[in-house]
């Protein structure tokens, strides 16, 4: 195969041509500032509000509950720090999990240094949070529960409905980082009792550099970026109209095909998982087989290291990612793989292959064929495998 096989859609996605097409008029022709009163300014304003309405519709939210941001990380920071600032007089306790994205974890650590107490609810060996653990962690001074909708590394879908109900019952605000889930799974913020939700455009075929935060009406969250009166005075800065239009277009396309995409990706995902586990010895699936994002697979291959695997896959034109320390530039492997209890060397040998609706069976089969060769080659090179084989012979 000569073409690139892109299986890292949890990292970022290709922008769809229809999305680029929707964005283009807002660069050279309709470039007006959405705050200006002349026609091209007002056209920008209209495009912005249409985009807001589209995004709100996908979540069963009100249009005025959607606030555009520069990325998912900004939305997470704003939701958490904004809640801490607005409700800190009520209490200084926040509940999160130990498998959150760093955008949430590091933000919580930031607040810890500023007098807040954080409870990191653990996950089980499949990466699932148990709602009763969240409920047990609630104290009279708890102001926020922030739990991701689905995990970015191992794809586990968290019991959001149960956690939302618990938050509502105890009168605690509930934020969810839905960066991996938005447009990949159906989300109804009202049915799920979600008070705040973060999402990022580039995870669903919109460009990088645009995201949003849903904030339930009535919440006292203040502005995080200070300046002009944009976004109902809550997020200053000239709106990135073209990219916001692109994000809305991408959301519209994804939502129109949600069921079909989910079905297609799930079938492809399960085929990939089944082939890897049956054809590659000493391999395991990380995460839950059932409560799993349609596009996510995450494996560990014993006796080998992730970066070497990625480099060899790259030589075959295949893009994936790993929770190995080497790829992160640190000595510790991924905190998510540690949280589900993997020993270090198993975590070092992890590989995430994340699909999108454009991947094909042919691509997946070619990838497994290459992967078999690569794993065998790296094992032939591995002193750990040598020891294992010698021990077996004894």
């Amino acid at each position, binding site marked *: 195969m000569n073409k690139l096989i892109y299986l890292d859609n949890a990292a970022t996605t290709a922008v769809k041509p229809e999305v680029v097409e929707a964005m283009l008029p807002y660069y050279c022709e309709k470039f007006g500032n959405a705050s200006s009163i002349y026609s091209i300014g007002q056209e920008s304003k209209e495009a912005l509000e249409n985009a807001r309405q589209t995004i709100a519709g996908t979540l069963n939210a009100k249009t005025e509950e959607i606030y555009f941001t520069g990325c998912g990380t900004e939305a997470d920071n704003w939701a958490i720090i904004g809640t801490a600032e607005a409700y800190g007089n009520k209490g200084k306790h926040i509940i999160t999990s130990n498998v959150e994205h760093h955008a949430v974890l590091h933000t919580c650590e930031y607040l810890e240094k500023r007098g807040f107490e954080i409870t990191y609810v653990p996950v089980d060996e499949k990466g699932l949070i148990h709602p009763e653990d969240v409920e047990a962690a609630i104290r009279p001074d708890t102001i926020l529960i922030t739990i991701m909708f689905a995990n970015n590394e191992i794809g586990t879908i968290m019991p959001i409905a149960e956690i939302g109900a618990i938050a509502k019952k105890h009168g605690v605000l509930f934020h969810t980082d839905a960066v991996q889930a938005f447009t990949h799974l159906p989300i109804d913020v009202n049915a799920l009792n979600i008070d705040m939700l973060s999402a990022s455009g580039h995870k669903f075929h919109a460009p990088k550099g645009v995201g949003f935060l849903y904030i339930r009406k009535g919440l006292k969250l203040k502005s995080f970026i200070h300046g002009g009166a944009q976004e109902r005075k809550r997020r200053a800065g000239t709106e990135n109209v073209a990219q916001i239009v692109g994000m809305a277009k991408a959301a519209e396309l994804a939502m129109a095909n949600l069921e079909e995409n989910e079905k297609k990706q799930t079938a492809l995902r399960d085929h990939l998982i089944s082939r890897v586990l049956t054809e590659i010895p*000493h391999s*395991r699936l990380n995460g839950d087989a059932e409560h799993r994002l349609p596009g996510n697979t995450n494996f*560990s291959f*014993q*006796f*080998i*290291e*992730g*970066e*070497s695997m990625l*480099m060899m896959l790259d*030589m075959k034109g295949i893009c994936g990612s790993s929770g*190995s*320390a*080497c790829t992160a*530039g640190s*000595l510790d*492997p991924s905190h998510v793989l540690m949280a589900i209890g993997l*020993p*270090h*060397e*198993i975590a*070092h040998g992890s590989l995430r292959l994340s699909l999108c609706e454009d991947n094909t069976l042919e691509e997946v089969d070619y990838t497994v064929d290459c992967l078999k060769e690569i794993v065998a080659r790296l094992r*032939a*090179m*591995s*002193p*750990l*495998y*040598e*020891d*294992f084989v010698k*021990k077996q012979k004894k």
Partner: protein
Amino acid sequence: MAYSEKVMDHFTNPRNMGEIENASGVGTVGNAKCGDIMRIYLDIDENQIVRDVKFKTFGCGAAVATSSMATELVKGKSIYEALQVTNKAVMEALDGLPPVKVHCSLLAEEAIHAALWDYATKHGIEIPGLQKPVTDISEHEEEEEY
């Protein structure tokens, strides 16, 4: 992070990869926790010349490349010359390594030292300047299999 062409070459086509049966000296360094383990096998003749050398490595691209380069640098050398192969020499021979990967070259140097130490101990020889390796993990415990 970008690897040099030489690193990529040694990663793609590692030299001297494998095992030596009844080797004169074997050294294993690093640990699985950090994600790098290197093992060097030395076949040393009666004139104390490294007649053959092989390596096995669990680790990233840089770990494989530094192991491979280290074997090239010691092959055909006397045990005293082999001891002088430093991590700097390995790095230079590879046209450099990204800063986060410098520890891989240190591991390669330590692996050679560990193999030489094993040889010296087995043959009752003292190699001036050679110290007992600190990170030898040949006695490491096997983790349970998945």
